């Protein structure tokens, strides 16, 4: 910090990056919810920047940072407390009108399912059959063996190979 006060940008950025963990720990100890920890981190970093002239190099940096982080955490809790007291909470209404995932997340998961189905369709017939019967329809080995006319050992080997092929295709690793 002493170097940062003198204007050393690299030391400053490293110091701030290293400070994030401590700020989060302090905010968590103050009782800030996990969702809001990052807001406290940002507020604290901005305050640190604004009051960096108050740091005395002969004293502990962690104590200095910790005091600022604790204050920002309390500010966050207070403002959230105020907002919560103004907002209406109706659990029943929330249950009846569930807020579905946002559109992009829904599209993304649909596309993922689509890609998986395409990949299964492109598998060799024996492997595809094994995945469909055992994986998708969740049949037992003996049921699947009866339906497909293959023995259980062959089904197991095919399922294993199919899963390996799919894994390779999606994650690019054998």
């Amino acid at each position: 910090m002493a170097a940062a006060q003198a204007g050393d940008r690299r030391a400053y950025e490293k110091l701030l990056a290293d400070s994030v963990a401590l700020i989060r720990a302090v905010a968590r100890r103050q009782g800030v919810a996990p969702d809001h920890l990052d807001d406290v981190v940002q507020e604290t970093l901005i305050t640190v920047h604004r009051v960096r002239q108050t740091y005395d190099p002969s004293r502990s940096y962690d104590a200095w940072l910790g005091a600022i982080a604790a204050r920002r955490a309390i500010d966050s809790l207070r403002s959230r407390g105020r907002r919560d007291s103004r907002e209406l909470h109706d659990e029943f209404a929330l249950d009846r009108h569930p807020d579905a995932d946002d559109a992009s997340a829904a599209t993304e998961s649909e596309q993922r399912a689509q890609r998986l189905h395409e990949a299964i369709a492109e598998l060799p017939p024996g492997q595809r059959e094994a995945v469909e019967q055992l994986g998708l329809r969740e049949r037992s080995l003996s049921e699947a063996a009866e339906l497909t006319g293959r023995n259980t050992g062959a089904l197991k080997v095919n399922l294993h190979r199919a899963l390996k092929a799919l894994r390779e295709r999606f994650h690019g690793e054998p």
Partner: protein
Amino acid sequence: MTADPQSHQALIDRLGTDLVPVRRLLPPGLRTAGWLLLVAALAAGLLMHYGAGPMLRRWAATPDLAWAGIGAVITAISAAWAAFALAVPGRRAAWAWLPLPGALLWIGASGLGCLRTWLAPGTEVAGLQQSADCLLFIIGFSIPLSALLVVLLRRACPLRPVLAAVLIGLASAAASASLLEICHAFDSAATDLLTHALAVAAVVAVNAAMGGRLLSKA
């Protein structure tokens, strides 16, 4: 609303771009001394105008007033020091207790003055008009002294704005009361003491109400 590590990095980059060298804040003791220098200058001005004679004569006649005056000076110094110390993040909150001994001496010794009318019926007692002058004096001097402290503290980072504001009010009210000692024309009595208490309370309360807002922006 929530930020991820990338946005932390973005913020850190931006702050890094803004970075300019800063002059480190002087230690709280030195900053207190700077403020006291102004109070001392005011005291010197008043002493030149009124002379030390009347004050010393009064003190010789009523030692408890001298103790009250000393208590006020100690309170002013320790409250200002505590305010400057607490404006530095990471200093212990226990600093806020520093002005307590001085304040006890100040209030205790002035309280003895309350009995003056019974103890020494001959001493000159303040009338209502003079008490109003005291009130104006303390409030009039406290405003610029408080304003200077607020400006100085805004350079630092008072994380407990209201506590800092109370200390500012106490420091400036005590300093004004100390200055008043120099040109006080009479001994303290119940009415006078009440006026003092009123003035000090007003200064402290106004600071607490306003200072919290003035300081928290810093």
